[in-house]
């Protein structure tokens, strides 16, 4: 069971997080923390005129699951239109809740399937995604 949680690909994202750090001129920032453990994450985004994600970075401290999930997330939404991003967030949240409808876009994210067997860790996996959904809300509000 542990092997399905800490798959090599997850540990790889944890070791070498993609898009880790901060953007010089971020357009939207969202910070989010998991009050039950104190872990926190910050996601920064720049959109182009067509409302597509042209830059995304994250930083923060957290466990392997939250860091890997954030890292994978930044790869998955790169270049996507905000509407697609919204769909992806919902898809991922549903996936964590046990739905098996996987879109093609999931790529590495599928490796997080193992988290579903560890209910208390699901919050770790969704931390970055919750921050991202706050970003979408802000984008919508600005429109």
């Amino acid at each position, binding site marked *: 069971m542990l092997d399905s*949680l*800490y798959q090599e690909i997850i540990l790889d994202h944890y*070791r070498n997080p993609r898009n880790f750090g901060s953007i010089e001129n971020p357009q939207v920032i969202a910070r989010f923390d998991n009050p039950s*453990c104190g*872990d926190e994450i910050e996601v920064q985004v720049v959109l182009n005129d067509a409302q597509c994600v042209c830059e995304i970075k994250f930083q923060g401290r957290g*466990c*392997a*699951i939250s860091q890997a999930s954030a890292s994978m997330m930044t790869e998955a939404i790169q270049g996507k239109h905000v509407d697609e991003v919204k769909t992806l967030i919902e898809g991922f949240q549903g996936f964590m809740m046990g739905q098996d409808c996987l879109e093609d876009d999931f790529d590495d994210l599928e490796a997080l399937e193992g988290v579903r067997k560890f209910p208390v*860790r699901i919050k770790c996996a969704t931390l970055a995604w919750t921050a991202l959904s706050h970003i979408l809300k802000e984008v919508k509000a600005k429109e």
Partner: protein
Amino acid sequence: MNNLALKYRQDFPLLKQEVYGKPLVYLDNAATSQKPTSVLKAVDYYYCNDNANIHRGLYALSERATQAYESVRDKVSKFIGATSSQEIIFTSGTTESINLVAHSWGRKNLSSNDAILLTEMEHHSNLVPWHLLREQIGFQIKFIPVTAEGSLDLSQLEELLKNVKLVSLNHMSNVLGTINDVKKVAELAHQAGALVLVDGAQSVAHMPVDMKVLDCDFYAFSGHKMCAPTGCGVLWAKKNILEEMGPFLGGGEMIHQVFLDHSTYAEVPNRFEAGTMNIAQVVGLGAAIDYLSEIGMDKIFAYEQYLLELATEKLQKIEGLSIFGQAPHKGAVISFLLDQVHPHDLATILDQEGIAIRAGHHCAQPLMRKFDLISTARASFYFYNMPEEIDVLVQGLEKAKEMFAYVR
């Protein structure tokens, strides 16, 4: 060393279980303790034989229930060396006990020109009640600093005590394990005219305590950490101080007379026990005190010191492991970090080995922040833990290291 676990572990039905096919190794005793059969039986006996509402009943059941409840006041009083059982107030736990002091003593005795003195190692239960009260009446909150090794830095205490009306500190830190020199703090505080509240949540369960020796003014603790049921606790305070305090919660039993538009209040301790109390849980607390007393708190403390030494020694041998909290006088609580393995991942991995430890901020965020930490792993022991369980922990930690070996 007298291995207490050999003799007493069998009294705890929960500890006999397996988790994921491995024997449970319960090392989260600072969060809550397991319950011996004698406590469960006492509660059951109460419900099956004596259960009734107390104090006002003129029938046999109610007399027995009242007797069962009130006799625990005497037991607690003796257990902690109080002067009188009327100094014992039953609450729902340490948290409520401290809130009671904040409301009933604090609201009356603190004003915007005063200060209270806490420490940097307090549990949220000894921080938040003061934050809430200060929002309403505005006093200053000062802090005794914590040193790098995790002790209280008392060198500036006299200076810090200026203007202070109350010092509130824990007896033993649930993160660092540090046992604070409460007696010394009380001495200096009293010289400066301040009262002293001690958060005994971690101490009463693990060592002998004596109010006459400590000479503090308030002492708060929880039943659930000392083999008693959840939902009960105690506030002890010197009688003359209690007598000057107004009520906390309002309701039945804490009154003398009630009129439509005002009330007068009962004597101490009833004044602070409103409504139908947690009778069965208090009965269980009595049984827990009997149980612990029979073992002997000095023996429990000695055995846990042995476990602490053994565990510290073995953990320190693990490369990349660092222990957070190295005070010379410690209880059997070890917070630690393992290089490259986040405490949450560690807890999940150990859980799969049947080992229950805690990972997180341990309700002491300010302390964590001071040391630039978000969370630590914590193993905490009780007298029913076996030396062998330390080996299982060490193996689990080695396994976690291996899994995360090549990280970053």
